[in-house]
């Protein structure tokens, strides 16, 4: 089976003093028909990677294959089959929704009619409104419509839901899901882990220009060690002896100190709660708060990329 995307040892270095190594040897395979999420903190190299794959940026080194073709030889053929929504595009203010979609449709040999594209993102009512009059969510949906109108086999969405209200986000999710159901490949970047968890078949976590984790959201969560988390807060700090004892409790995989207390990853929270409470009581540590929840992709993300704010971006 041909892959939708295959990247081998992708490198992108921006000239400067010192040179910025945005992508440093990234490998990535995306299967046809899957929804693939590219996650990572700001400045991790997501957008650079995406733009290299989209043929908008030339890699410093490495190979890219898109739908079994390369940009050097088959740029025109690839373009006909891609739909792209860039991170931030301000479309012409004084064109109507319909006019913008019609314009983009004209670039593609085959595709949807402008009306179909509008219907897919539920913008029919705004067909004759100027772009400048649209709300943020409507603009994002219009951007998506311009990516959909060529009926692409492979769709790239760079932070499609950033800055949107919950309703608009869910509306976009529905559009993306329906695309996947029709067998199209979708690659998206997002900062919302819940979004990636819900939408993506597989995700890759990118940091410092490299892919540091790859798999289905479930796999990544499972790789954390336990799929459940116990968070607790005590009066002051845990004495180191107690802390060590905590780590040795049955079922506990890891213990991490967070700004608001401690976080245990456990396989089965029911079997750890009683011993934990006993341990704290025996050592006269006052428990202030205790919650349990299942692990999310966000926990994976934070544990992989750390909690510290990045320099630069």
């Amino acid at each position: 089976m041909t892959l939708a995307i295959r990247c081998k040892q992708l490198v992108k270095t921006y000239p400067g003093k010192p040179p910025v190594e945005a992508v440093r040897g990234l490998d990535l395979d995306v299967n046809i028909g899957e929804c693939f999420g590219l996650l990572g903190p700001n400045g991790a190299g997501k957008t650079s990677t995406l733009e290299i794959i989209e043929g908008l940026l030339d890699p410093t080194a490495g190979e890219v294959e898109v739908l079994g073709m390369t940009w050097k030889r088959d740029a025109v053929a690839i373009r006909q089959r891609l739909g792209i929504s860039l991170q931030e595009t301000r479309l012409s203010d004084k064109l109507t929704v319909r006019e913008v979609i019609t314009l983009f449709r004209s670039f593609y040999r085959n595709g949807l009619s402008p009306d179909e594209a509008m219907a897919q993102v539920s913008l029919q009512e705004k067909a004759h409104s100027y772009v400048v009059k649209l709300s943020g969510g409507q603009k994002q949906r219009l951007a998506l419509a311009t990516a959909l109108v060529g009926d692409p086999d492979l769709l790239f969405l760079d932070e499609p839901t950033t800055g949107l209200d919950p309703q608009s986000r869910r509306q976009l999710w529905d559009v993306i899901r329906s695309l996947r159901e029709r067998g199209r490949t979708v690659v998206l970047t997002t900062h919302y882990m819940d979004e990636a968890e819900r939408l993506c078949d597989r995700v890759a976590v990118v940091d410092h220009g490299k892919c540091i984790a790859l798999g289905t959201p479930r796999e990544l969560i499972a790789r954390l060690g336990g799929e459940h988390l116990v968070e607790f807060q005590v009066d002051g700090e845990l004495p180191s002896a107690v802390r060590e004892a905590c780590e040795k409790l049955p079922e506990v995989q890891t213990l991490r100190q967070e700004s608001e207390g401690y976080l245990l990853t456990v396989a089965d929270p029911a079997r750890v709660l009683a011993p934990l409470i006993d341990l704290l009581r025996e050592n006269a540590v006052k428990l202030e708060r205790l919650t349990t929840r299942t692990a999310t992709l966000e926990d994976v993300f934070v544990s992989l990329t750390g909690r510290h704010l990045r320099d630069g971006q």
Partner: protein
Amino acid sequence: MCLFRSQAAICETASNAELGIRNAEFRVRGILTEHKQRSQCHQNVSLAYIPKSAFRIPHDSRFFTHNRRETMSPLWQLTLARLREFFREPAALLWVYGFPLVLAITLGMAFRDRPVEQIRVDIRNDGPGGVAAAERLSALLATDERFAVTVSDQAAVSYRLRVARTDLVVIPAASETVANEFLLDVNRTECVLARAAVESLTLRQGSPVPPPEIRTVEEPGGRYIDFLLPGLLGINLMAGGLFGVGFLTVDMRVRNLLKRYVATPMKRSDFLLSLMLSRLIFTISEVVLLLGFAYLFFEIRVRGDFLAFLTVLVVGGISFCGLGLLIASRTRTIEAASGFVNLAMLPMYILSGVFFSADRFPDFAQPFIQSLPLTALNNALRAIMNDGAGWAAIVNPLAILLVWGIGCFTLALKIFRWK
């Protein structure tokens, strides 16, 4: 409602040929409802309707289930987008169409030609000759239409001379053998001229030789407005190319729109051609407007070869498009674009003979000034419009414009940053 009527008229002419009158009625009705719906959508942008109705290819689904023309030509769609954006921007309309007209009107009026020669002469009716002599002289002067004669008493004529309401006061003598008395201010040219005119008329009286036959020379293109108008056309083409291509392209780059277009299978040549094509359409409308206005108000017309005139306009326009594209080729911010555009425009505004002749600058600057594209364009336009020149006179300017145009385009395309 006149909007609707023009829309209806457009549809009707189109439809009569295609669909027959019956269908045309339906279609007009359909578009009327659509028009109403749209008006409700955004009442505050009603201006948008003029171009929309004028340029829209009908896509009413009741008659065209799938309109291929509408979707298939990217060049046309890109051009259409440019036209729509432009005509929906009232400020742009004002600058492009309003500004040159206002400039032409103001400057044309300020520097308009002197009226027909008029000589104001007062005749005193209380001098030695009395009323009878005054009337005799008045009748004599009336034979020449240049004279505007007032007959009055001493107090009145002295006052009128003092406040320059008359150029000459004549005090008729008692008899025809005695000399008349002239009262005038020798420092005022019109007084001296009036004196000479009255004197020659009185001397010629009774002479067998008739007065000279006067024929005024109608020198075409001699007025200031004749000089100004080609210059206005020139700066319109320049501003159109630099702003309409240069500034606009940078704006698209800043908006990420250029990158977005490149991310589609759009042909880059289509994009560039659409910029040219839309400029061409704007230029034609600007030129027609300015020339029409100039013809109506100042009776200015193109005296030379009209085809040569059009060629100069098109080559000039394309040449400035090239300059605009060069400015836009690597510029990443609006501020920088604005700086570059002004850097290119301001010197030419002053040096290239828009408002006054470029010949006034010193000789050592002439080779530079004469090789500027706007100087070449203005020279060629003036040669054709005012001097009635043909192809021969515009070979040089046309060559300069072509060199600029080809040079700018080649360089711009080489270094243009699409992504």
